[in-house]
């Protein structure tokens, strides 16, 4: 029995041995757990635009160019925030005083640029995530597999927001919805089509703002996404 075909035949026969029916107690136990387990909502922010029509794709590509040109100048400045660490507080600026959230100008606000290796290390270090969730984050939600740099940006204009991720200089993922300021320290983001949104504490200093989530994420995966995409200091790109 030396060639691969012979091995495969033997292995197939061997694989046929063994149980072929799931034990009832295992299935029933799973169903009992499911009875008390709620489903995850489809992500409030779809992070990625998987079925873009040609018009939308053209519009996004045009916006990518604008973001690349306008934001690129800003991005050339070295980032000061390390991934996984606490976001810098807006009050750290010694010469600035907090402003009411409603004082925010319309425009594109750019977050710090991170090394993808740091993000992946943070994903792998998050013990609340399953291996499937880690893969989903890296491959799908952030799209950073085999990439080098990553940053997030938020466009705020006329009550409409657009959230984007830029991977290796190309904006590939986005979402959009409405934003409102319930008060001067709070902002609500409600994705288009979603029943409810995510509430953040917002601290505005000069042309920058810092977000901190006030809505408990339903899952570890959601928590990681919200923390990464939003809990940072964003600065108006000029």
């Amino acid at each position, binding site marked *: *029995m*030396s060639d*691969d075909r012979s*091995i*495969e035949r*033997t*292995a*197939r026969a*061997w*694989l*046929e*041995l*063994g*149980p*072929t*029916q*799931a*034990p009832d107690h*295992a*299935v029933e*136990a*799973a*169903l009992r*757990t*499911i*009875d008390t*387990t*709620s*489903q*995850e*909502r*489809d*992500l409030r922010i779809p992070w990625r635009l*998987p079925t873009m029509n040609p018009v939308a794709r053209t519009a996004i590509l045009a916006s990518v160019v604008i973001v690349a040109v306008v934001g690129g100048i800003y991005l050339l400045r070295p980032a000061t925030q390390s991934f996984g660490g606490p976001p810098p507080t807006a009050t750290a600026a010694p010469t600035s005083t907090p402003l009411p959230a409603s004082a925010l100008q319309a425009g594109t606000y750019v977050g710090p640029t991170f090394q993808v290796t740091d993000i992946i290390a943070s994903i792998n270090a998050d013990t609340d995530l*399953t*291996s*499937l969730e880690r*893969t989903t984050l890296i*491959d799908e939600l952030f799209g950073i597999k085999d990439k080098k740099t990553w940053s997030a940006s938020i466009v705020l204009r006329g009550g409409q927001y657009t959230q984007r991720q830029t991977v290796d200089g190309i904006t590939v993922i986005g979402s959009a919805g409405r934003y409102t300021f319930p008060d001067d320290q709070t902002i609500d983001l409600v994705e288009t089509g979603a029943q409810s949104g995510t509430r953040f504490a917002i601290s505005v200093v000069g042309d920058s703002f810092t977000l901190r989530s006030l809505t408990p994420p339903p*899952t570890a995966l959601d928590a990681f996404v919200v923390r990464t995409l939003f809990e940072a200091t964003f600065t108006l790109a000029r």
Partner: protein
Amino acid sequence: MDRDLVERARKGDRAAFAVLVHQVSDSLYSVAYRILRDTGLAEDALQNALVLAWRRLPKLRDLDRFEAWIHRILVHACYDESQRTRSWRGSVVALPIELAGVTDETSQVADRDELERAFRWLTIEQRAVFVLHHYLGLPLVEVAELLGIPAGTVRSRLHYATRSLRVAIETGAAIPASEGRLA
């Protein structure tokens, strides 16, 4: 697979999901057992996969891909189980009960014994590819799609798995796969 059932389950219908569970659980368990070679671990992987599938179902985009999607979740659940129980790889494990009643030639039983031991030396990723291809009969392209990895990686894993099994049987000993055995 009934698309309507999947759609209802996706919208939170537990009864519909229970029907789906009964339709797929035998296949899921069979695959889990063959990857993990342990009934207890396979049960845990099955339960974790079913619960995770229920939680994640609203995010399933292509309802027609439900079966492949839930098998992917299962394989990852098997990866998790193997991570949690690395030490079991080094332990002595009895052959499946079904073997006790088999009246094969001595040499065939010996082959199976060696296969059992050799299989445990494969990485969990190699085992998954080997089982999906040789047990479920999926073409390599479909295995790659199901696992979300390049077809070349699937071919490579299958090649190393087959080679390791062949060496093990020819030498009568379990030889680690050179591609990168589990720690």
